[in-house]
């Protein structure tokens, strides 16, 4: 009996030693065999097992789905609000850019329309204001866009975007519709300087339409011009219109120079000094028209 027990005990110890040494391998092998056996379970039995386990999981999964849905919807709302806010900002920026583009285009359209009207006015002028303009001798009418206005000390110059490449030469008259603007002063290949009617060096022969009194209108460096060489007994009144005479051969006849701004002052001994408001408001000008006269009226030297 004791021997049997001793043998059994030593066998146990041996088995236990094998188990300790190869525990992992034994477990691996057992699990591998179990996996093989499980993979051979008939489909029906497997489905039953699966459905049983799935039914246990249904309720907690439903709860988790509910929580997940709430969190997901909340996140979607937050993200969509953020996305909407970002898109809103982008759209506003685009809208502002488009508004600026539209106003620039509107501006350009208005300017071109004005140029077109002015060109039409110069070319097809009727005697609606008793001021027929001789256009037969105008060979070229070149519209020029004003790109800058310089006013250093007394001089008043406009820079326009047409030059010698467009056929512009010095001493060409510059007009807008039926009014005198000035004279081409300097010409470059792509731009030209226009001496304005208000420039102190500018002069033009003009005639009072009412009294038929002639005189020289000169710039003053101020918004008003002066008409000089008018006799003391001249019947010039406030509001009389003055037009060009065409005497110097530079400006055609009947271009409107301006209007008598104040009742003439009797200064000096011989001549009246009359203040003239030019017809053209330089501050509102966007474009001008430069005229090329085919035949000068008189062959006179440059007056300046």
């Amino acid at each position, binding site marked *: 009996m004791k021997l049997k027990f001793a043998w059994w005990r030593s066998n146990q110890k041996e088995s236990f030693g094998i188990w300790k040494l190869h*525990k*992992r391998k034994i*477990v*691996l092998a057992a*699990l*591998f065999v*179990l*996996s*093989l*056996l*499980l*993979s051979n*379970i008939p489909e029906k039995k*497997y489905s039953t*097992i*699966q459905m049983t*386990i*799935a039914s246990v*999981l249904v309720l*907690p*999964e*439903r709860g*988790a*789905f509910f*929580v*997940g*849905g709430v*969190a*997901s919807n909340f996140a979607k709302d937050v993200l969509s609000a953020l996305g909407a806010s970002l898109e809103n900002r982008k759209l506003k920026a685009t809208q502002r850019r488009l508004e600026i583009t539209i106003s620039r285009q509107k501006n350009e359209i208005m300017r071109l329309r004005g140029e077109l009207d002015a060109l039409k006015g110069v070319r097809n002028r009727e005697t609606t204001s008793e001021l027929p303009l001789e256009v037969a001798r105008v060979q070229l009418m070149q519209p020029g866009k004003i790109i800058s206005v310089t006013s250093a000390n007394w001089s008043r110059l406009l820079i326009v975007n047409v030059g010698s490449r467009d056929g512009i030469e010095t001493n060409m008259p510059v007009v807008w519709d039926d009014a005198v603007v000035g004279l081409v002063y300097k010409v470059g290949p792509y731009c030209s300087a226009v001496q304005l009617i208000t420039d102190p060096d500018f002069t033009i022969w003009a005639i009072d339409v009412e009294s038929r009194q002639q005189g020289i209108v000169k710039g003053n460096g101020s918004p008003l011009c002066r008409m000089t060489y008018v006799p003391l007994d001249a019947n010039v009144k406030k509001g009389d219109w003055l037009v060009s005479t065409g005497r110097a051969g530079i400006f055609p006849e009947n271009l409107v120079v301006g209007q008598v701004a104040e009742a003439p002052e009797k200064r000096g001994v011989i001549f009246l000094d009359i203040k003239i408001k030019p017809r053209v408001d330089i501050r509102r000008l966007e474009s001008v028209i430069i005229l090329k006269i085919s035949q000068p009226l008189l062959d006179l030297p440059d007056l300046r």
Partner: protein
Amino acid sequence: MKVHWEKFAMVLFACAVLQGSLLFYIEVESCAPDLFLMLVIFLALYADKEQALLCAWIAGLGKDISTAGRLGFYAFLFMAAAFFIIRIRDEIYKEEHFTRMFLVFFVTMGIHLVAVIYASFFFNYRLSRGFALSILLLSVYNLIATPVMISLFEKIKMVKKLKA
């Protein structure tokens, strides 16, 4: 480092519930983090070796049942992955997050490659670029989720006397 079996059972249950519900909301191209696999890797890194193998097998079985796959397939694969990790765990610095992340990445790649090859042999699937991209995406997703999940498992203290 014995396993707390009751905690393990609860975590396994939670993984089964979450894998089939909440993770749906964070899916990317039908890929979501594999909670079972991360549990297996955690236990393989820290638990007693034989118990880790058993837990991996059980977790694989859980995945088989929850995915309606062939019973025993993932059980075997997870057990093989756990065996591999157990062999190398003494050589690596397992506390480092990057080590864990890369381990998860490669194990995920390996397991799913084997699964796809198995499916192509036995179920006549054609191996395509789409499969490869899915495996890569899944591996990357698991890699990203690793620090969070492993830290969570550590906090739950499924394993007694966690070695520092």
